[in-house]
């Protein structure tokens, strides 16, 4: 007897140590016995549950769960076997838990004597499954296809998400049945590279995941697509690769757009760039930069751009950058000098569109060195011309004054001479003609240079300018002729005196 008691005591101990909850009910649903696991799960005390009718435990069973229990109870009493089912229960703390229930009967004299209920808390598992399902849905909606490849020849597919058809055109079944292998969908020209990337990363035990260089696939409709593939390597304890799990993304359109932008970027003769305003470095530059400056793209990206700017232009460039950073101010026609690889400088004119929230600026520039040189030359010419004009004007004023004075003086002299004719010898014709030569020379000298120049620079209409130039040219030509004629007369007079 003592041994039997000891046995029952031990059974009770085992009963309470069970991880799953165990309840014994009578045929009316009254709880006769329960173990510790039930108390732990529900949060209730033993005395609060023992003797209670499960159909009245509304504080524990929400109505939906209660209905289910009643239905199943009826079935069990009829002697039917019931599969596992799940219901929701509310703990004493108000927490909702999901439990898996296994109900069976204990018969006595071929009649249902007692109902045995085994319960298991599966809340964690269900939530995890739910989260997993949600994650899977999110991944599938994002357009990313998940693959699990076995590490065997041809990479047979263990799992692939339903959205595989969206990218590859092939169904899950096509892949899982082995009708199509992954190796076959990779573009033949990219296959060896993909193989190599898998091989290299698999051999390195430290690598847990790697990203393939984008590669091409051929879809069921024989369309070529470019994809991004991040692969996770799954190894056993010995480090041997068992399988690969991959996240595949279709980047065909993205790549096309990127290629188009790059082409536009590089075909342009303009220097187009994206610069980081915070670090003061170029992020991306068009090929025109290298063509014009002589530096390679790597060289230009490796240093802050101020390293290439003429020391005298660094301050104003930094000021312009600060304005862009602070105010997001667009910059137009900003000029500075950039050093070429040969060591000389080229003038660049910039237009910049900053995006301060990203600390970047999109800019374009073009080489204005020739324009700058021309402007400099023009400025020098203008200064020179101005200087010359001023000198000529001075000379002219002096000359006109002198000539007029000379003529006046000569008149005075003439008058004096006529008055003194009786006592003084008359002025010779040689001298008179010489006076005429000087007068004609004065006209020629002035109008040939200074006045014509002044006329060209005036704001007269083109028509008037042309007419004036024509008249002055005629006047100059005829004055030259007059001068020559008077010189000939001088010669003749000279001949007479000889």
């Amino acid at each position, binding site marked *: 007897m003592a041994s039997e008691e000891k046995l029952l005591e031990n059974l009770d101990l085992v009963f309470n140590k069970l991880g799953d909850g165990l309840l014994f009910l009578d045929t009316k649903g009254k709880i006769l016995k329960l173990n510790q696991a039930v108390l732990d799960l529900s949060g209730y005390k033993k005395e609060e549950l023992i003797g209670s009718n499960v159909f009245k435990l509304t504080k524990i069973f929400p109505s939906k769960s209660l209905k289910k229990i009643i239905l199943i109870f009826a079935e069990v009493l009829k002697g039917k076997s019931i599969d596992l089912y799940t219901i929701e229960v509310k703990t004493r703390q108000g927490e909702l838990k999901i439990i898996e229930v296994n109900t069976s009967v204990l018969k006595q004299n071929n009649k249902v004597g007692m109902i045995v209920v085994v319960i298991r808390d599966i809340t964690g598992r269900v939530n995890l499954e739910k989260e997993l399902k949600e994650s899977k849905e999110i991944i599938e909606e994002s357009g990313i296809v998940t693959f699990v490849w076995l590490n065997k020849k041809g990479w047979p597919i263990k799992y692939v998400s339903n959205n595989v058809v969206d990218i590859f055109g092939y169904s899950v079944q096509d892949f899982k049945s082995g009708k199509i292998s992954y190796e076959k969908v990779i573009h033949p020209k990219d296959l060896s590279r993909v193989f190599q990337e898998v091989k290299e990363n698999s051999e390195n035990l430290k690598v847990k995941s790697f990203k393939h260089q984008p590669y091409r696939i051929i879809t069921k409709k024989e369309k070529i697509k470019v994809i991004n593939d991040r692969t996770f390597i799954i190894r056993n304890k010995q480090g041997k690769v068992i399988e690969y799990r991959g996240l595949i993304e279709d980047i065909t359109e993205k790549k096309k757009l990127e290629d188009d932008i790059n082409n536009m970027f590089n075909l342009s003769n303009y220097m187009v760039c994206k610069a980081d305003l915070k670090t003061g470095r170029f992020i991306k530059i068009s090929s025109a930069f290298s063509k014009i400056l002589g530096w390679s793209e790597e060289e230009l990206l490796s240093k802050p751009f101020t390293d290439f700017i003429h020391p005298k232009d660094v301050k104003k460039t930094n000021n312009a950058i600060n304005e862009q950073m602070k105010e997001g101010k667009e910059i137009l026609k900003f000029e500075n000098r950039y050093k070429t690889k040969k060591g000389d400088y080229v003038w660049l004119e910039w237009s910049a569109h900053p995006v301060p929230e990203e600390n970047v600026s999109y800019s374009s520039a073009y080489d204005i060195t020739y324009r700058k040189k021309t402007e400099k030359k023009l400025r020098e010419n203008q200064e020179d011309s101005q200087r010359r004009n001023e000198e000529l004007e001075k000379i002219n004023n002096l000359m006109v004054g002198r000539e*007029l004075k000379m*003529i006046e003086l000569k008149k005075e002299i003439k008058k004096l001479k006529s008055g003194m004719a009786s006592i003084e010898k008359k002025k010779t014709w040689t001298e008179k003609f010489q006076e*005429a030569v000087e007068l*004609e020379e004065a*006209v020629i000298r002035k109008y040939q240079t200074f*006045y014509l120049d*002044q006329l060209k620079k*005036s704001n*007269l209409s083109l028509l008037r300018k042309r007419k*004036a130039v024509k008249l002055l040219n005629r006047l100059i030509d005829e004055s030259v002729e007059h001068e020559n004629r008077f010189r000939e007369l001088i010669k003749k007079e000279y001949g007479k005196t000889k």
Partner: protein
Amino acid sequence: MAKQNKKLARIFNDLYLIEKQARDLYNEFLKTLEDPEERKVVKFIRDQEKDHMRIAKELIDLVK
């Protein structure tokens, strides 16, 4: 009238005065010059100076 045009008008006015002086001078020559060939030359030049005075006037009008 722009500053530059005023300046030009002043310049052409000076030109007119010089041409007028030339005409007067050659008129003076013709009063006493006896050599017929020389008279012919001076007369021709004097007439052209008259025309130059007209040109100078025309230039002044152009820039006004």
